């Protein structure tokens, strides 16, 4: 048991070190530093928000913050997925060195992205406080729900990323498939639109898209938007579980022989 604990701590330390390197490498030469992780969704929000608010007239209350949360979550998710999928292949130099725990590679990328996400998220909350938007952030229970939603997002991303990065070692075109899928997935997620404005018959599709519910939880707590029906929750939750379990199992099985394919 003690041995297991030691092993776990070491792999954790390695993951943290690689996360730090990842964060450092990303902003080494960027003038604005980590402000970019906030500026990126901000610019996206302004562009998309402007189009939908003034040209198409989306009937959504508080459209700009509504959009911003969606973009933040989506950027974290899609950026992680696209970066982690080829990560094992790119890290061949590290993998050929020793038998260190391979999961450190994908997890370090996800954690560094999550770090950026958190910075942008807190900046966003601060803005909301300043402009006195209606939001329910003063209760302990809503804080717990926010943390639960964030954990959901991070676990979902990790599971899917483990799965895709493993598959990409064996099938190098997974990377391209994921890139194409991300574009489609963006529109299949209620980021620029809300579920309220859709015809009820289409809701079934969203039960299959596991990123929907955690996103909607965040929105409902921060902006007071109505939550989608609970059966969407069940669908999302089950798919999330399937992705996490299959991701871990497949990664565990294949990671022993990664070097044979690299």
């Amino acid at each position, binding site marked *: 048991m003690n041995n297991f604990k030691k092993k776990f701590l*070491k792999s954790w330390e*390695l993951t943290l070190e690689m996360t730090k*390197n990842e964060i450092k*490498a990303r902003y080494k030469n960027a003038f604005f530093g980590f402000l970019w992780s906030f500026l990126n969704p901000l610019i996206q929000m302004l562009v998309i928000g402007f189009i939908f608010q003034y040209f198409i007239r989306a009937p959504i209350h508080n459209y700009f913050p509504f959009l911003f949360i969606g973009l933040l979550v989506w950027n974290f998710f899609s950026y992680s997925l696209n970066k982690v999928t080829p990560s094992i292949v790119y890290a061949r130099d*590290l*993998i050929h*060195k*020793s038998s260190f725990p391979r999961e450190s590679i994908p997890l370090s990328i996800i954690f560094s992205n999550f770090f950026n996400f958190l910075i942008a998220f807190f900046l966003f909350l601060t803005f909301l406080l300043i402009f006195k938007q209606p939001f329910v952030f003063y209760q302990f229970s809503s804080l717990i729900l926010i943390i639960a939603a964030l954990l959901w997002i991070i676990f979902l991303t990790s599971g899917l990323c483990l799965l895709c990065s493993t598959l990409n070692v064996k*099938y190098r075109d997974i990377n391209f498939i994921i890139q194409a899928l991300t574009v489609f997935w963006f529109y299949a997620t209620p980021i620029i639109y809300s579920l309220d404005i859709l015809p009820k018959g289409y809701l079934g599709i969203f039960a299959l898209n596991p990123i929907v519910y955690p996103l909607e939880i965040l929105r409902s707590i921060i902006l007071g938007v109505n939550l989608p029906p609970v059966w969407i929750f069940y669908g999302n939750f089950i798919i999330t579980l399937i992705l996490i379990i299959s991701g871990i199992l497949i990664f565990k099985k294949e990671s022993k022989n990664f070097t044979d394919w690299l």
Partner: protein
Amino acid sequence: MKKEKDFAIKLTHISKKYILHHQKPTLMENIFRFGQKENFWALKKINLELKKGESLGIIGNNGSGKTTFLKIISGITTQTSGDIKVCGRIVSLIDVNSGFNQELTGEENIYLNGMLLGMTRKEIEKKFKQIIKFSDLKKFIDAPFYTYSFGMKLRLGFAIVAYSNPDIILIDEVLAGGDKNFLNRTYRFIKNFLKEGKTLIFVSHFLPILEKFCQKAVFLEKGEIKMFGETKKVINSYKNKIGKNNL
């Protein structure tokens, strides 16, 4: 009292199968064309036991399975069948670029590489000065790794291996790129290392070094052990074999 195990490495019936890829493997190809898979046995039923304090040299032509052998022992890849027992911390120096991130500085890479070898941050902090001294890279330690020459990478890689408190060291070929000065330092280190009852496995085509470092040697051919014994005898038989083929 529990009896201390006296072997460092014990291999029983180790075999390794690779699937030959003629192109980059893709999913589309797998779906649309039931690919002709070609198997290649890199190692066939290897049996070997090495005691603590022994040093083993491995010789053989290219493609005889030397690197696969090291990779299975170090756990970088897993055997297809057979059983392997390793006693102690094992570290490897198989390729000078492996274990380094080209974009990071030398200093950051010492931490990364050290942790890959199983050291903790604290351990690395303690050994940091010695590693820099051994590698002779004081001036360049905050330069990015991609600016390093082959020799510099080699020195840094070996220094980290040397100070990672290993019980078993695996070295593949790379030492040939070092200069006389470095080789002398390496030689002194390995001599002390073996005196402490630790184990070295060394792959090289450079037979004089092999003879200097290793008491025992294995001659691999096509994934099988052709000969195992005293280094001198094994080298002689290897030379004979090569000589015959050349005639």
